[in-house]
């Protein structure tokens, strides 16, 4: 049975299911218990994560498995890699993906490479949950969409769901996967609702979803930009243009077949991404189309992305920074 949940509640549910079904799953991060367990002050549960994604885990699974960490990302992410290597299945919360800046080595040089360097005789079943994206007036150090950076690192997987059902299913799949997975939660849609299946269910890593079928143009989105694409598709339908929307969901592995199958149906493609344009997911998908889909293209690939700039604070500028429906429509119209 499905019922409506917020994106963040779907994540919370996945964490409960994962912890209940596997005693090796541990949750580490800043404020994940959120100062819970202060019986002296009559406080058992406090925050449960800054976004509330880990609410109730501390009460349900205890202090041994749900750990408030110091503000020491390098230390606890590194420790999680070591724990993953030796038998635990850690889920680490890096509060905002921007904070990977102070914790990159464990991900870049350890988690991503140990299995390969050890000749395949190691596994790092680690999940790094982290919040991404702009739109909340959080300025340049709390608004980045750095999933392109992690997707570019061989040895890491990276996913970014666009709706609560996928959030739950992909998170469970990520936790149970034996490779390190970076799990991105776009902050602008964390509190949006959608139907979510009950109980234990997974969405496979590496598979895109067809969010809307169409025949004239393919709009590719990731996370929040799937919603931009869907809105644009609706507007285009009113003009008599039938747009198909592909939700990448997984950035590494990338479901190139799904993108190309859609391109084969439409002949035109626009990739929409919240990240800046250089060396990112939109560039990657464009390269895929040029490499393997050249004969399918009736028009050049178009990208609608953030500019090559940090995220500005001023609401007036941030609204210009993020990809909008209007910019997608303009890109489609320009394709003729």
């Amino acid at each position, binding site marked *: 049975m499905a019922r409506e949940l917020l994106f963040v509640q779907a994540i919370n549910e996945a964490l409960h299911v994962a912890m209940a079904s596997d005693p090796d799953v541990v949750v580490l991060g800043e404020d994940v218990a959120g100062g819970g367990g202060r019986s002296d002050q009559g*406080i058992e549960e*406090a925050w449960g994560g800054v976004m509330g994604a880990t609410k109730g885990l501390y009460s349900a699974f205890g202090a041994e498995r749900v750990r408030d960490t110091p503000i020491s990302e390098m230390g606890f992410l590194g420790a999680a890699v070591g724990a993953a290597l030796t038998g635990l299945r850690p889920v680490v919360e890096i509060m905002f993906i921007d904070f990977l800046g102070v914790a990159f080595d464990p991900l870049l040089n350890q988690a991503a490479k140990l299995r390969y360097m050890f000749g395949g005789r190691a596994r790092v079943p680690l999940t790094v949950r982290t919040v991404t994206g702009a739109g909340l*007036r*959080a300025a340049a150090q709390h608004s980045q969409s750095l999933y392109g950076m992690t997707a570019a690192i061989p040895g890491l997987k990276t996913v970014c769901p666009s709706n609560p059902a996928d959030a739950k299913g992909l998170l469970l799949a990520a936790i149970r996967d034996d490779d390190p997975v970076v799990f991105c939660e776009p902050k602008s849609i964390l509190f949006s609702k959608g139907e979510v299946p009950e109980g234990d269910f997974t969405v496979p890593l590496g598979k895109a979803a067809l969010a809307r079928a169409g025949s004239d143009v393919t709009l590719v989105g990731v996370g929040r930009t799937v919603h931009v694409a869907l809105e644009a598709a609706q507007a285009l339908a009113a003009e008599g243009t039938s747009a198909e929307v592909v939700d990448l969901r997984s950035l590494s592995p990338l479901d190139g077949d799904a993108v190309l199958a859609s391109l084969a149906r439409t002949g035109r493609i626009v990739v929409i991404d919240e990240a800046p344009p250089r060396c990112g997911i939109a560039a990657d998908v464009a390269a895929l189309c040029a490499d393997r889909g050249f004969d399918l293209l009736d028009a050049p690939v178009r990208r609608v992305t953030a500019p090559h700039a940090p995220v*500005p*604070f001023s609401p*007036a*500028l941030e609204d210009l920074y993020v990809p909008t429906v209007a910019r997608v429509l303009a890109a489609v119209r320009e394709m003729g």
Partner: protein
Amino acid sequence: MELTRERLLDAYRRMRRIRAFEEKLAELVTAGRLAGFLHLYAGEEAVAVGVAAHLGDRDHFASTHRGHGHCIAKGVEVRGMMAELFGRSTGTCKGKGGSMHIADLSKGMLGANGIVGAGIPLAVGAALTAKVKRTGGVSVAFFGDGASNQGQFHEGLNLAAVWKLPALFVVENNGYGEATPTEFVTPVRDIAARAGSYGIPGVIADGMDFFDVFEKAGEAIARARAGDGPTLLECKTYRYFGHYVGDNLAYRSKEEAERWRQQRDALEGFERRTAGEGWLESGALRAVDAEVASEIEDAVRFAEASPFPEPAALLQDVYVSYEET
């Protein structure tokens, strides 16, 4: 440094300005007039001001996400700060930084910072500049108890200590990092004890008492200026508001907060002491209160009347120079 009447009044003015600024922000956010993530400094005024009272424009501050107090203490104009918070082009950073990035290099303010611990090595770098260029300046990093668990804290202190830099590390121990009590994540009760690992003095001050901070910061700054290297100064303090405006405060009791406000308030303590010693009469302080209140109102009017940045600003100042064809 001697605390003359002018200096005392100036210190009080800065503390009051911080308090009034922060209380105004809480009001504006609650009323929906202001957006963004705001971490208020109210309660901790004596720390920033007690340190700043020794310093001038050649000296540097590096700050944190809870940076408004450090900015005001260092002399950054409240009009520009308020306009920055409103995202206007007249803001200290032309509206592009917001609360967590207010900076004013002309005042020696190296910026609030969105990354916990990141200001520490920046201050170390400013101290290196001061030493290499013999400016006579001292560089101060402010940071929280939580930040003292970051690698940047340990690496920064080590570096400053081996290089004997003119730096002061001020840890504002307010008992919490977000919702997490300090003792859950920090095994030493006094963060000042960590100075021992770097062979530098670790000193504890009452962060609610301007005079105690002033005295201890003064000794540390004199040491730094004399070429004797850095000090770690721990100020025990408390933040009155939540971690950010909108925090539900589920992790701490109302009584705890009330106790600090009623028994330890920095502004009230300052007034008791200065009146008791016969240094300042209450009329002078009330006059400052009134001036500050109208200053803050003026800043809000200025901010709200200011224009938003032009769209072109989006792509300006990413680099000093950059050409791509």
